[in-house]
């Protein structure tokens, strides 16, 4: 039996038919983890018993018996939640995140905590205090980030699915690098209660899965209003699974000219363009569109996100939780040393940058101006969606890069999110799915839709997936 290879919906069928049990799936995954994860480093911790956290719920629940990995910034009661940072090592979550709670109620088994860039600051999973995660397709390369452990665990069949969080591409870019499906839902679609905050106007929790149907399945479990998150939207959750396999004939998709051409790896562009031809063959109307303020998205993001993070991370002060530096002579020194010793380089860079952008005399020129340009970026999407149902772009300008290749140059690292950042700034949903290979490495295609229209992503994504026959098994063999 090769249960570790299955999707969640395939496992459901096997369980229903009585030909497999959740314990068998967990046992298989655990033995794969024991064999492979010493090298890949997808997981940073497990529950004490090591058999996964589960709740006794009826078998007809949508994720009954499905083992999932949870990014280390999403709280699971009684387990560490460290954001892969020294400052939170040893911190045990006192309650479940709403996303965690929804998974447990749906019958999922929480298999372990997935590695990430420290506090989700990064695009390569190299800034984790637990060391980098490696890409299952090529262990000398990064899995992308920040949700690198979540993406790699699914790609290497060390989890059936996983949760990540996406602030500027942290689900979609690693999904692209690892050849799996990843969704950043609409801002407000999934509750963030119990997600350790990075940038509160951008963060969203979302799933990593092996196919689009599983993505719809997990999203239908995660989505919905939560009174515990004041930014959660009270908007009905449609039947996402009914979109799978529906005809896409007559749908209109736009190709934003700003996302093709300059700076993109030629093999990446070729793979995305060939997938677009497949959409056209299915009867989708493809037309050019323009999002003229795209070129400013990275700059806007690297002012807005650090500003919000400098505010959110002020709570890590050595007083109420996390690490306190010993031997400080007074309160100020205790704050400065606890934070100086506890945060890694990129976290400190972003805190200082954000503090500067919000400081007296600079606020108008930096933070306020960035928020104004953000409005123009959002309007670009509103204009485009008057003409089309969805946008198609590459997820990242390149396939997975080498470990160490960009870690010395923050700006080069930031630019690897150039195609994903705008969706967070505008609050729109976006899905990355594998569409081909570039020199043997996965290429991600990004679908972007109107706010609260995840249905369009699932419909187009599942139709395209059937045409592509992406060789997912290559990662399993390589890992």
């Amino acid at each position: 039996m090769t249960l570790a290879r299955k999707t969640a919906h395939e496992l459901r069928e096997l369980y229903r038919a009585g030909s497999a049990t959740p314990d068998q799936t967990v046992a298989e995954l655990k033995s794969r983890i024991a064999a492979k994860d010493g090298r890949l480093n997808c997981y940073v911790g497990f529950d004490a018993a090591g058999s996964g956290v589960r709740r006794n719920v009826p078998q007809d629940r949508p994720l009954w018996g499905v083992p999932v990995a949870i990014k280390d910034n999403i709280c699971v009661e009684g387990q560490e939640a460290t954001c892969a940072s020294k400052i939170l090592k040893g911190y045990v979550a006192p309650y479940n995140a709403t996303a965690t709670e929804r998974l447990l109620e749906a019958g999922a088994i929480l298999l372990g905590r997935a590695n990430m860039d420290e506090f989700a600051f990064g695009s390569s999973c190299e800034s984790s205090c637990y060391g980098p995660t490696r890409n299952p397709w090529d262990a000398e390369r990064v899995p992308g980030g920040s949700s690198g452990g979540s993406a790699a665990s699914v790609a290497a069949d060390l989890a059936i699915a996983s949760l990540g969080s996406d602030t500027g591409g942290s689900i979609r870019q690693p999904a692209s690098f690892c050849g799996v499906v990843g969704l950043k839902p609409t801002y407000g679609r999934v509750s963030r209660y119990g997600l350790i905050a990075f940038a509160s106007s951008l963060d969203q929790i979302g799933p990593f899965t092996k196919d689009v149907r599983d993505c719809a399945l997990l999203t239908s479990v995660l989505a919905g209003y939560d009174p515990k998150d004041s930014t959660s939207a009270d908007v009905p959750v449609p039947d996402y699974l009914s979109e799978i396999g529906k005809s896409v004939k007559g749908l209109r998709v736009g190709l934003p000219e700003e996302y093709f051409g300059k700076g993109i790896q030629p093999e990446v562009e070729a793979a995305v363009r060939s997938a677009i031809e497949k959409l056209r063959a299915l009867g989708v109307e493809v037309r050019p569109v323009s999002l003229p303020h795209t070129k400013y998205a990275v700059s806007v993001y690297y002012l807005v996100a650090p500003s919000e993070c400098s505010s959110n991370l002020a709570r890590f002060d050595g007083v109420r939780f996390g690490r306190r530096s010993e031997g400080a002579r007074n309160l100020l020194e205790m704050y400065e040393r606890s934070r100086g010793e506890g945060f890694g380089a990129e976290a400190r860079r972003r805190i200082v940058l954000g503090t500067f952008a919000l400081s007296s005399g600079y606020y108008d020129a930096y933070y306020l101006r960035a928020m104004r340009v953000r409005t123009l970026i959002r309007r670009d999407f509103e204009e485009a969606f008057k003409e089309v149902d969805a946008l198609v772009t590459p997820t990242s300008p390149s396939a997975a890069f080498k470990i160490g290749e960009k870690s010395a140059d923050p700006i080069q690292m930031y630019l690897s999110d150039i195609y994903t950042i705008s969706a967070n700034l505008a609050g729109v949903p976006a899905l990355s799915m594998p569409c081909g290979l570039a020199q043997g490495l996965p290429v991600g295609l990004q679908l972007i839709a109107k706010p609260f229209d995840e249905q369009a992503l699932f419909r187009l994504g599942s139709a395209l997936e059937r045409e592509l026959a992406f060789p997912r098994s290559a990662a399993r063999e390589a890992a």
Partner: protein
Amino acid sequence: MSSFDLRHVARLARLHFTDAELKPFESQLSKILGFVEELKEVNVDGVEPTSHPLAVANVFRADEPVQSLDVEPFLARAPKARGRFFEVPKIIEDRS
């Protein structure tokens, strides 16, 4: 933005840097600020800022008492606690 004063901003952020760290961080941050200078070329006259993609304001829950989480588990997670308080180094100097 060549005059980025890391020492000043780090103090505002309550973040300690060693002397050896100051120079390389300062030069990286100056580069990043140089990069975002491109926003100055955008005409934003009359454009309202977006602080948040969802148009919601003043979200209130129903005014009904609910059971809160207990205090003890939170105190147990603090680096130092005494009784029902978090303990920190002395703030006011002895003058005696």
